């Protein structure tokens, strides 16, 4: 019942040999290193800590994550130093979600305000969901009315989870969301798993139905919704949009097998995230099959040895 362990020794290994780049960028970086060598060295990228002088500001340009102080280029973050030609930037090792227009995010309502909701989406600022950018009951696309403003909590209230798309940015950098699609809206029948946002890559689709009867929504902000599979036809309803169902807070009946599958998928996601493995549907299906093959219980998936073995097995296969 109680397992007490000593903490794992901290790695003194500061070389990040596994930093990956897009091929086009990689070529340029490689070329630079070949051309100039010297200051930034070869091989693994260097780590910088906040306040550390990276290089002289006269020879190089400051990029993201750096600033100039007394003619020196100083790092503002903990991260790897990257250089493209004369531009030096520091990419943070751990950061919050950096939104871009068109991204799919999963968020939680933190505040109901005048004609808008504040949404926590793991970014530096809370996102904003305007009353005008949600699907209003009544089926057809229509303008918001005063009566809608008065019953905003019937749509979303504090604590509710929703899936939405980044629509635009405000002047202060906060993102504006919209849920004007039948795929977006309130989340039910499952639970949330949080991973570092860097592990969710931009994919063709962020909605997956895994063969084990589990639906996944991979939010680019690192929030992942794991829920019971809902058939496409049921999801959309007969008339295309059913406000009652879309804004409902009640879960469907979920059997024990599905709940176990949901727990297993969540534990796999957590285990992969602990080993900094980017998540894709293929990888998750592989991992799920591996766990079933090896007859590993849901609980054991969170054990360190098991998750290591799993990551090794599936990254080898992939």
């Amino acid at each position: 019942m109680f397992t007490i362990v000593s903490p794992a020794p901290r790695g003194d290994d500061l070389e990040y040999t596994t930093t990956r780049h897009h091929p086009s960028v990689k070529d340029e970086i490689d070329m630079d290193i070949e051309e100039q060598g010297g200051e930034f060295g070869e091989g693994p990228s260097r780590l910088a800590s906040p306040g550390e002088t990276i290089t002289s500001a006269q020879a190089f340009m400051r990029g993201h994550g750096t600033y100039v102080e007394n003619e020196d280029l100083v790092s503002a973050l903990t991260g790897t130093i990257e250089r493209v030609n004369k531009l030096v930037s520091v990419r943070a090792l751990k950061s919050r979600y950096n939104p871009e227009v068109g991204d799919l995010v999963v968020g939680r309502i933190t505040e109901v305000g005048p004609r808008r909701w504040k949404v926590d989406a793991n970014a530096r600022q809370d996102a904003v969901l305007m009353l005008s950018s949600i699907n209003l009951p009544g089926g057809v696309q229509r303008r918001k009315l005063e009566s809608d403003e008065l019953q905003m909590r019937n749509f979303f209230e504090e604590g509710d989870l929703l899936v939405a798309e980044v629509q635009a940015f405000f002047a202060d950098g906060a993102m504006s969301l919209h849920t004007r699609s039948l795929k977006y809206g309130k989340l039910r029948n499952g639970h949330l798993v949080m991973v570092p946002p860097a592990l969710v890559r931009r994919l063709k689709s962020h909605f997956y139905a895994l063969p084990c009867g589990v639906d996944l929504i991979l939010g680019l902000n690192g929030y992942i919704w794991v829920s019971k599979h809902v058939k496409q036809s049921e999801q959309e309803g007969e008339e295309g949009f059913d406000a009652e169902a879309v804004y409902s807070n009640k879960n469907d009946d979920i059997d024990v097998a599905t709940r176990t599958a949901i727990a297993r998928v969540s534990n796999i996601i957590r285990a992969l995230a602990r080993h900094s493995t980017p998540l894709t549907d293929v990888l998750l299906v592989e991992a799920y099959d591996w766990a079933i093959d090896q007859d590993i219980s849901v609980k054991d998936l969170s054990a360190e040895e098991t998750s290591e073995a799993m990551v090794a097995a599936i990254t080898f296969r992939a």
Partner: protein
Amino acid sequence: MAYVSKSENSYITTSLLAGIRADGRSPTDYRNISLEIGVVPVANGSARARVGETEVVAAIKLEVEDVGEGENEGRDGGRVLCHVSCTPSAYPHHSLSALDELSDELSSLLQSILSHTLTPSEQLTLVPGKKAWFISLDALILSDAGNAHDALFIAARAALWDLRIPYTRGIEFDIKDGEVVVGDSEGIGRMIGRKRTVDFELPDLLDDGVPLEGRDSLPVCISLNLLPPTHFLDASLQEEQSVLSRLLLFFSFPQPSPTSTLYGTRFIGPNELPFNMLKPLVKDGEKYARELAEALNKKLKQEESQVSAPMSAFG
């Protein structure tokens, strides 16, 4: 402020009633506890405990106090002061005043349980009526992923286990026919016959001191999260927010006797706890607490043998 939606809440509670937890644990399974002692080099005793992702660091500083009547003066048998700080990084959604409130609540809880178990103690008296030890325990909650109470007590207990009280020798003045003779008495100050211990000195020994007496029977905290008709242990943050009622039990197990002492109970949550439910809960809680205390003692003994091995080679 609500952190879970209604549908999440109902999903979590119905799953718990079916005996399935989000991370596959059984209702009485604890997450992995990781424990490390001697993490703060300048403290007299320190420890870091992690329960899952909940992390607490505790450190103890010893001071010598003059014994007196006042609020901030020493007592015969020692005095304990506990302070818990909740870091803003552990509770990013709390306002500063809410953090202070939470810190005060945890401080008073730790204080009320520990001060009764640790004091008064012979070991903490230096010179009766004059000088006594003052144990100042500070705990820092670095992150809270649920079950902060249990983690806090695990850290505090491990720090007290790691505590070394320096050797002292009492200085006595022997009054014989009006003549004052200065003498020594080994050990901790005492009063025998006409001999009076009036001060103490620290012998110049390399050894770092003696551990606290009865450290293997220090109290543990066990939180029973109540979801009638069942209960579960070690709630994650989401579970904690869905199931609001908790019963905290503070047990101590004096060694080697098989008895147990219930030092305190605390009920947290908006619901009521029917009285007839309390007895079976306390009974179950005792069982869990005993296992936890035994596991902790075993781990701490093992940890200490690892830590002390290189130290004695050095000395």
